[in-house]
């Protein structure tokens, strides 16, 4: 049996997943700022209002705590809401509902309930968003037990992981990389195509160095890796895809093979995702390491507006290539 696929952009894959889940399950609905008539700031939800009507595709006031409180409360009452926060940068105004409510309800109420909410959040650089429309905050949420933290980099993963998120019984924060929105890929049309949480994806295999990358950095890493095959350097590029739970096994197995690890991550360096992965590997895979672990991050600086400046700080294929060659 050949699996039927269609080529589409990341953002179309998300839309498809949401649409299919809303068709499948009446308790799924979506809410957020300008997601209805306008179709969402990045047009991810375009057409859903027309299809499902205003009861299930809800435009909200600019009240992020109310949006998330409403979604979380509805989840407590048995619905499966999907809530959008327009930019990750605005999570600052509604951390409370995610961190102290959704993440903790199951535990602090002694397992009486679970909170099947999915919180969608576009993040990252690339649109001249400057300091307040470009940030990557995923490591904050990895630090909050009770949440599942998802971060796909590619269209079919967007679809498969979004479907798993919606059907999951725990609160899921689903980070959508802005640059990955516009990358196209072949997406299975199967309405039950799901990707389990906790399984990394190996984009390409190699023996010389392990590259762990997330979001837009996966593509940059792949460009670097492809280029380096010309010099007979073979990278293994791994995208964890889900940060909580994290597929340590695949990463450690790769480092066992290569002995060298580089982590590429768009977040500001200190206390970013890359720190956690480096720490896991030096803690649990020290014996495999032949060299220091290299983290390639955006440095600790607010994102500047000028594209010339932004380009200077965001890791790219060229920088990754250089670092690989230096390490080897």
């Amino acid at each position, binding site marked *: 049996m050949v699996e039927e696929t269609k080529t589409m952009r990341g953002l179309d894959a998300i839309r498809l997943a949401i649409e299919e889940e809303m068709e499948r399950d009446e308790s799924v*609905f979506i809410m957020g700022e300008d997601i209805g008539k306008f179709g969402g700031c990045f047009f991810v939800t375009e057409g859903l209002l027309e299809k499902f009507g205003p*009861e*299930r595709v809800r435009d*909200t*006031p600019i*009240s*992020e*705590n*109310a949006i*998330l*409180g*409403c*979604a*979380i*409360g*509805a*989840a*407590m*009452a*048995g*619905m499966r*809401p999907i809530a959008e926060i327009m930019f990750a940068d605005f999570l600052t105004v509604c951390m*409370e*509902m995610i961190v*102290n*409510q959704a993440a903790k*309800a*199951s*535990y*602090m*109420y*002694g*397992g*009486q*309930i*679970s909170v099947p909410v999915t919180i969608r959040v576009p993040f990252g650089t690339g649109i001249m968003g400057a300091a307040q429309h470009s940030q990557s905050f995923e490591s904050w949420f*990895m630090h909050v*037990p*009770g949440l*599942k933290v998802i971060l796909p980099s590619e269209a079919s993963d967007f679809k498969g992981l979004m479907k798993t998120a919606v059907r999951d*019984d*725990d609160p899921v924060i689903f980070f959508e990389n802005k640059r990955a929105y516009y990358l196209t890929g072949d997406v299975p049309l199967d309405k039950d195509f799901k990707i389990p*949480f*906790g399984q990394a994806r190996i984009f390409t295999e190699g023996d010389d160095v392990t590259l762990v990358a997330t979001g837009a950095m996966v593509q940059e890493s792949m460009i670097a890796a492809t280029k380096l095959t010309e010099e007979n350097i073979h990278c293994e590029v791994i995208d964890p895809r889900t*940060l*909580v*739970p*994290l597929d*340590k096994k695949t990463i450690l197995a790769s480092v066992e093979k290569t002995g060298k690890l580089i982590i590429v991550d768009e977040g500001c360096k200190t206390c970013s995702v890359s720190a*956690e992965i480096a*720490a*896991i590997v030096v803690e649990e895979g020290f014996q495999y390491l032949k060299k220091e672990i290299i983290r390639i991050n955006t440095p600790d600086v607010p994102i500047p507006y000028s594209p010339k400046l932004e380009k200077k700080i965001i890791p790219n294929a060229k920088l990754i290539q250089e670092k690989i060659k230096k390490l080897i």
Partner: protein
Amino acid sequence: MNGGELPKELSSDELINIYKKMLLIRKFEQRITKDFGKIKSPLVHTYTGEEAIAVGACMAINEDDYITSTHRGHGHFIAKGGDVNSLMAEIYGKEGGICKGRGGSMHVADFSKSMLGANGIVGAGPPLALGVALASKMRNEGKVVLTFFGDGAANQGMLHESMNLAAAWKLPVIFILENNMYGWSTPFHAATAIKDFSIRAQGYGMKGFTIDGNDVIEVYKTIKEAVDIARNGGGPTLIECKTYRWQGQTIMDPDKYRSPEEKEEWKNRCPIKAYKTRLIRGEIIDKVMIQEIEEMTLVKIDESFKFAKENKNPDPSTVLDNVYKKPIKYGGN
């Protein structure tokens, strides 16, 4: 003014139940206070003096209607029909507690009774109430949600967002503001320039009332009216209940910021005593029954205390349970 006729639509049993519940809360909190040295948690807030609000409000709804609560949640828990034994055990951090000793006083919840939880974050209940109300609305269940919060919480941004959204979407939420005159040590008139919070209702396009929160019947009637509106699709109402907490902010609070005179004055306006007088005047109960209820209540409290005391501490090996519905491998472990 705590007086007037007792409502005709309530049976004698129901009227007596109101009394029993208020008394149960009072005695429960007194017991907690007395045994405070054994609880050890500095973060236990009692509801003493405010009993009429939770009890009057919960009388006005059905069993399957919802409530959200605050850090001061024992009264709401009992009023909503939660089990006193598992409440007491929770405050003592025992395995038989309603949250298995994980939550403690600030997180008591009984989802089987649609009591959606006390909450340690001031102002965090109302946003959650929106969602429960929306779910009810989307499924045409006709259920309403009472969301309790304090005068201090009223100045939290989350409240504003919640009241606005509830009104814009005509959600069946009743906002019950328990104005006990203080947010911790801060008198409400120092935290805001207004006298009655109910005036804020207009700013959202809903009705608002300020009532005597120590008059259980007034509370009942006002909430009932709001519940009827909500059930009929008329959206939310804001009800400010003026009251007073008899004890400190927490059971450890030296409470030096309030004058003895002020406290005395409010104790004279005891909601339970006033209601008892009305019941007697209305010939619903007599001295003998009062005595009986008092004794039964104390027995119940003693039992709950015994239950809590004899209950096991949670098994430390289960400490990682329930972080997720099914265990997952943690990233870093």
